[in-house]
C-alpha cells in the first residue's frame, strides 16, 4: 500500500502552503484522482486520517474527485470515455485505443485554510 507515502508527501505540501499563507488550520483538502492512477481512494482516506493526526489538518474534510479515464482514437480522432472497464474501443470505428487523454491524475487540487 503506497497510499501512506503518497498522502504524507501530499500533507507536506498542504502544510507548507498553510504555513506560507500564515494559516493555523486546514479545513478542506480536495484531491483529483484518476481511475487509472493506480491509487485506491479508500486507502487514501485511511492514510489521510493517519498522517493528518496532530497537524493543523487534523479533522479537515478530505474530498476526492474521481477523474474517469478518457481515450482518443488515433484513426478518427474521437475522444471518448468509458463507463466501466478499461478496454477502450472507439465507439465509431471499433478500434482498440491506448492513448489516454485523462485518467492518470494524482493531483492536489485545492485547499481551504484559515
Amino acid at each position, binding site marked *: *500500500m*503506497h497510499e501512506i*507515502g*503518497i498522502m504524507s*508527501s*501530499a500533507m507536506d*505540501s498542504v502544510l507548507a*502552503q498553510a504555513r506560507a*499563507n500564515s*494559516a493555523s*488550520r486546514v*479545513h*478542506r483538502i480536495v*484531491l483529483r484522482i484518476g481511475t*487509472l*492512477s*493506480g*491509487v*485506491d481512494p*479508500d*486507502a487514501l*482516506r*485511511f492514510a489521510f*486520517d493517519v498522517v493528518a493526526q496532530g497537524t493543523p489538518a487534523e*479533522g*479537515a*474534510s*478530505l474530498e476526492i474527485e474521481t477523474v474517469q479515464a478518457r481515450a482518443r482514437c488515433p484513426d478518427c480522432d474521437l475522444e471518448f470515455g468509458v463507463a466501466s*472497464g*478499461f*478496454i477502450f474501443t472507439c465507439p465509431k470505428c471499433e478500434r*482498440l*485505443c*491506448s*492513448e*489516454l487523454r485523462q485518467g*492518470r491524475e*494524482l*493531483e*492536489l*487540487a*485545492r*485547499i*481551504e*485554510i*484559515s
Partner: protein
Amino acid sequence: MPPETDAEESPSFQIRPMSPPPAAQDPKGSLRSLELKASLLDKNDRLAERNRRYFRSRGLLALNLVSSPGAGKTTLLERTLDEFGLQVRCAVLVGDLETDNDARRLHRPHAPVAQITTGEACHLEADMVARGVEAIDLAGVKVLFIENVGNLVCPASFDLGEEVRVVLLSCTEGEDKPLKYPPIFKSAHVVLLTKVDAAAVLGFDVEVASRNIQRIAPQARLIRLSARSGEGMSEWYELIRSLGPKAI
C-alpha cells in the same frame, strides 16, 4: 507490506463517514481557498525525469521490470545476462523488500549488480534508483535492467526514469489478470507472457491471455517466452536491441 494477492478481498481498513466540513463553524469568516493543482507525485516525477536525462546522456537503455511476486523476473534476467549480456554490457538494479537473494542470483563477473532493499516500500521510487545507480560501475554499460519489487499495483504510479516499462505475466497466474490490474498494463511498453513452457500442464490458455493483454494494452509489444526452455528469448533480445541506442 504484504505482497499483492489475487483474491478480491475486502480492504483491511475501515471506511469512516467524513466529519462535516468545519468551514461552517469558522467564526471569523477568514476562510481562504487556494487552487494548487499540484501533482501528488511531483517529487518522484522530477527525480524520475532527472534519471531519464542521465540515462539518455549516457546512451543507456533503462528497462523497468514489473510483475506479481514470482512471475519470473530474476530468472529472465539470469538467462538474459548469460546470453545477451555476453554481447552487450548490461547492469542490474534489483529491488526487494528485505533479502539480497535476487542480487546474489544475478551476480556475474561481466555484469554489475546492485541490490536496493526497500524495507517498508512495496515498490521502487526514482530516488532509490538514483542512489542504486551510484553504487554500480556504469562504464561501458548499454542496458540497465531494473527489477522492481514483486507487486502489480504500487509500481504503476512510480516513474523511475526508465525508457521502457516491461510488465511480466506468468502462465501460473490467471489469464484475466490484465483486466484486474489495468493501470500497470496500460502503462506497459512491453508485456512478456512468461513460463510458457508450463502453460499446457497448468491448463493456462495462452491465446485467451494474449487477447486480454492486447485488449487492455494495445500499445504494448507482446512476447511469449520461457526463460527455462528458451522459447521467445531471441525475440526478447531483438526487442532490446531495437529499443536501445544505435550502438547496441
